[in-house]
C-alpha cells in the first residue's frame, strides 16, 4: 500500500502545487496529508473545483483536483466546455467507487461506465498500482505537459493508505 505522504510528495516532486477537490473516504488520507502541508483548497462541488483549478493553471500553477467518481458526472460540462476546448490541463485524482460491482448502489453505474465515459470524452486515464506507481506518475507528467488537457488517475480501494486502514 502506498503511504499518503509518499503519494503527495510524488505529486509535489512533479511540480503539482495547487490542490482542490471534494472529499471521498478513499481519498481521506491524501486530503489529510495535503491539509497538514497547507496545500489544500476545499471546493463545494467538483465542477467548481475543476474551474478553480483552470484559473490556478492560468495563474501559473500546476493543479490537481481530487474527487469521487460521482463528481466526474458533476464535472462533465466544465471538463468539456472549459478544459478541453480551452486547452487547460489538470490532474484528476479520482477514487474508483463501485469498481467490480462491489459498493453501495449509488456507485455501481458510474463504477462500471467510468473508463468508457472518459474514453468517450477523450480524457486519458490510468489506474494507479503500487508496483507501477513510478511509471504512472511519469505518464501523468508527460501527458499533462504534452496534451494540455485533463488527465485522470484512478485510485482503487487499498492502493493508497486511507484514514482508517
Amino acid at each position, binding site marked *: 500500500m502506498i503511504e499518503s505522504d509518499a503519494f503527495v510528495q510524488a505529486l509535489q516532486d512533479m511540480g503539482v502545487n*495547487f490542490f482542490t477537490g471534494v472529499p471521498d473516504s478513499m481519498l481521506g488520507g491524501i486530503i489529510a496529508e495535503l491539509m497538514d502541508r497547507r496545500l489544500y*483548497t*476545499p*471546493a*463545494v*462541488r467538483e*465542477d*467548481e*473545483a475543476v*474551474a*478553480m*483549478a*483552470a*484559473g*490556478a*493553471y*492560468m*495563474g*501559473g*500553477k500546476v*493543479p490537481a483536483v481530487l474527487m469521487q467518481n460521482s463528481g466526474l458526472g458533476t464535472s462533465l*460540462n*466544465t471538463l*468539456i*466546455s*472549459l478544459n478541453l*476546448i*480551452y*486547452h*487547460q490541463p489538470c490532474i484528476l485524482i479520482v477514487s474508483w467507487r463501485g469498481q467490480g460491482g462491489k459498493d453501495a448502489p449509488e456507485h455501481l453505474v458510474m463504477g462500471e461506465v467510468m473508463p468508457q465515459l472518459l474514453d468517450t470524452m477523450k480524457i486519458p486515464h490510468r489506474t494507479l498500482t503500487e508496483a507501477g506507481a513510478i511509471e504512472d506518475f511519469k505518464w501523468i507528467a508527460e501527458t499533462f505537459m504534452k496534451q*494540455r488537457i485533463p488527465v485522470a488517475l484512478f485510485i482503487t480501494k487499498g492502493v493508497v493508505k486511507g484514514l482508517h486502514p
Partner: protein
Amino acid sequence: MRPEQGTLISRAQAMAALLELLTDQPVIICNGFPSREAQKLVDRPTHFYMIGSMGSAPAIALGVALAKPHKQVITFDGDGNVLMGMGTLATVAALKPKNFIHVVFDNEVYGTTGNQPTISNVVPLEKVAKAAGYTNVERVLDLDDLVYEFKDMLKKDGPSMLLIKVNEFAEDAGRVVLDPPDITKRFMKAIE
C-alpha cells in the same frame, strides 16, 4: 416589474463604465452576451472570454486570485450564472481572497437564450453574498453609483460584490472571435 423600477442603464453601458476604470487587471467574463459585449467594447489580453461552462466564472477567477495574490482579479458575471454556481459564493466567502471583485450584471433574465426569466427578481443575490461572508457588497441602479462604488471597491480589501441592476438590452455583438486555446495563451501571457 421588470426591469426593476429606476433601472435605466444597459449591461453594455455599465460594462463600458467599469472597463474605463480598469487597466491591466485580469477580468474573467461569463459566457453569453457579457463576453461578446466586452469583446466589442474593449478587447484586452487580460480578458478571459468564456464561451461555455456557465456558472464557472467566479470559480475560475478565484483560482486566478489564489494563484496571483498580488493582482486584483475581477469577474463579470450574470444573475443566471450566479444562480447556477451559487455554491461558489460560499467558497469565495470562506476563503476570503482580498483581491477578488465579483461584478454581477443582474437583468433578471437569461438574455442569451431569449430573455426567459431567472429568479433574481425575488432572490437578492447580493444579500446571499453578504450572508455567505463577502466583505463588501453593494447593489446599484445607476451609472453614478456604480462608478462611485466600483472605484471604492478597487481600493478596498475583498472579497467584494457589486451587483448592478441593468435592463434587458443586449448589444448587437458578434460571437467571441478568438479561438479558445488562443484566449488561454493570450490571457496567461498577459497576467504573468
